[in-house]
């Protein structure tokens, strides 16, 4: 059980990073449906950098930058040029998957260099890793996982305890009110879309570098979309995003687990679980009533100050 949950944490990380990235983007008022695309762009650039330099730091930086670059396209088209967010996001996904297959083509089947693999080896946290149950599940993981934990905490503090967090939440809820209060709208939107895209890129890179340590073009397989659904599931709350990612991480490895326990279910049917579960949470999320659980009120509403 402990081993299963520890593996679930690893499987949860790509989802968690992408979910947090999309959460920041949506909180600041933009609905970027290009998560899948940004994860793919991050994955391929992260992999290429790792393959070329052997440096894990450069790979992660490259993945973050690549995800942010993908998000930059979205930001320019939707924020500055006020294009339709839904279609722009979808296009980013199509673009990203094309980009990843195009750029990654020569790398198919290549593996992650040893130096990078070593970086992502589990590193138990002294003390905490000895706590029964909690230790083996949460604290005998790799550095990336700890970064994930840190992000959940930092983003929670950022959103609810800091001035910039308040300002960006206000943009998502009422852009006009934030603008009239003197908040710099475009700056905040750009910043969060880009940072969010960077996190999606990191999530994708983790898939390519650690989860499947070999390049394959369809490495993300819908996780970006699951992340979009998890944001709704989590009611735009980072802590709940962690819980949701954990749940889906567990679900995605359940198939292996069941098969190894001797259940004879087709791999392909088991593969459907996360997608069916995603639909289930989207349906359940329809029934939210508390004002605080609803999407940001101005999510994906275009804003032009001089609109009359």
């Amino acid at each position, binding site marked *: 059980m402990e081993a299963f949950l520890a593996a679930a944490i690893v499987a949860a990380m790509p989802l968690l990073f992408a979910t947090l990235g999309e959460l920041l983007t949506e909180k600041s008022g933009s609905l970027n449906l290009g998560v899948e695309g940004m994860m793919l762009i991050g994955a391929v650039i992260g992999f290429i950098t790792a393959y070329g330099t052997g440096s894990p730091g450069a790979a992660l930086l490259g993945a973050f930058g690549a995800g942010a670059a993908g998000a930059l396209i979205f930001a320019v088209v939707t924020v500055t040029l006020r294009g339709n967010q839904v279609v722009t996001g979808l296009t980013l996904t199509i673009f990203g998957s094309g980009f990843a297959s195009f750029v990654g083509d020569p790398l198919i089947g290549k593996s992650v260099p040893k130096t990078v693999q070593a970086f992502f080896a589990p590193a138990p946290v002294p003390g905490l890793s000895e706590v029964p149950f909690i230790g083996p599940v949460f604290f005998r993981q790799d550095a990336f996982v700890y970064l994930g934990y840190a992000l959940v905490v930092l983003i929670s503090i950022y959103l609810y305890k800091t001035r910039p967090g308040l300002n960006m939440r206000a943009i998502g809820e009422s852009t006009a*009110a934030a603008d009239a*209060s003197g908040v710099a709208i475009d700056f905040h939107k750009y910043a969060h879309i880009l940072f969010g895209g960077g996190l999606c890129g990191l999530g994708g890179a983790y898939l390519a570098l650690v989860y499947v340590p070999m390049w394959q073009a369809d490495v993300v397989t819908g996780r970006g979309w699951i992340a979009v659904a998890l944001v709704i599931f989590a009611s735009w709350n980072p802590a709940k995003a962690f819980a949701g990612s954990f749940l889906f991480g567990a679900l995605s490895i359940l198939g292996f687990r069941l098969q190894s326990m001797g259940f004879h279910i087709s791999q392909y049917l088991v593969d459907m679980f996360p997608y069916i579960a995603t639909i289930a949470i989207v349906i359940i999320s329809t029934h939210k009533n508390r004002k605080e659980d609803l999407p940001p009120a101005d999510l994906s509403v275009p804003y032009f100050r001089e609109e009359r």
Partner: protein
Amino acid sequence: MADDVRPDVPAIEMRGISKAFGSAVANRDIDLTVRYGEIHALLGENGAGKSTLMNMLSGIYRPDSGSIFVGGREAVFAAPRDSIKRGIGMIHQHFKLVDVMTAWENIALGSAGGLLLNRKRISQEITELSDRYGLDIKPDRKVYEMSVGEKQTLEILKVLYRGARILIMDEPTAVLTPQEIGKLFAIIRNMKEQGCAIVIITHKLNEVMEVSDRITVLRRGEAIATVETACVEIPSLIEMMVGRRMDLSIKRPPCEGAEELLRVDGVTVTGKDRKSALDGISFTLHSHEILGVAGVAGSGQKELCETIAGLQAAEKGRIFFEGQNILGKSPRDIIRLGIRMGFIPEDRLGMGLVGSMDIVHNIILKEYQGQKGVVLRRGPSAQKAQRIVERLDILTPSIHTPVSRLSGGNIQKVLLGREIDSDPKVLITAYPVRGLDIGASYRIYDLLNEQKAKGVGIIFIGEDLDVLIELCDRILVLSGGCVTGELDGARASKEEVGFLMTGGAA
């Protein structure tokens, strides 16, 4: 930084300000001077360009030409934050508050300070400030729980918190009861005593006379005159506003031969937030009458209209249309039963019309259900559109122009024209003159009176108590989803209606 207050230097000086939206000129070469320690009224009818002018002062719009001086120094505002920095605060007609946030969060929003938010300190600052100006606010209350009056108080505090010395209020009294208006004026006078410059935008003459020191009148985007309030009379103000001598009283032809058309009996409706939006409402509507409905915004007016029109499900109660219970029937059923009912909803382009479609396709909206077969027939509706355009003098390039391209008054005429054209027996109108200029408003009143003379029973949801009292035969007052009173239009007073609007006896 906000500029130092020097009494000899005007707070605001606007010189030669012009602003156009596309081909429509909103402001043309306007000069305006506002002093510290004065209440300056910006008077003009809807569409005269008052809000546009002030939005340039608050950094929302940028002028096409002209210059602005604040405290004697030139100012160019690229965004609202630039205007805030120069000590200007604007309270918009549609409040710019974040619903899901608390009062203190709204006040802290966009303000300078450290990285971390200190709720305690900000709350304390808010309390001190509200004591000083005699305001009443609970820092931890969420905006969505607040009444309209509370929201306005919050907006004022928000502006004061930023140290604004120049306050602009856009139609601050539009949504308040007479009692609340009294309180607001006391606050404004208090701020004036403390040396603030205050601009209030309004189209209500008696309020201008009551509270302001000086008045600048705008008409069709131009500044007509600036006068001392003490030296001017209402009729000359009207002339400056409208451009001609005009009697602003509204006609109320006597109603004759009234018979019961609609009887609403104990209707209860649960709103989205699970509280009851309507609570056991009962009243009757007769032919040949205009029944006014007064109430603070959000007292159940919307639900009342939509329930009668069949758009909103009710918990219990009955609605009789000439003796037949129509509650629970959909608009489709109502049309099929041959019940002739017209409905002018509050949100014209969001509910009554499709903005991106032309006049013909907006006429079809109410016609196509009656057409047989699968094919959409445009011919008859195009003829009808032409007829309506001619009859109501709708200004439009053609009947194939998207309605969103028309002016507010013409949009309303399309909607009203369509509803009247089907010869309704009952006509429900929600805020039918909101945002219209004086000419268009009086045209609408005339049209309603015409319908009344033909025997139509009209429900008129209104916000301007003067209009309700002058136009309506009877006035129903709603408060918190209950009927708190029913008054005879000819004998009601504003104070009486205002008292009932806030719950009456309770």
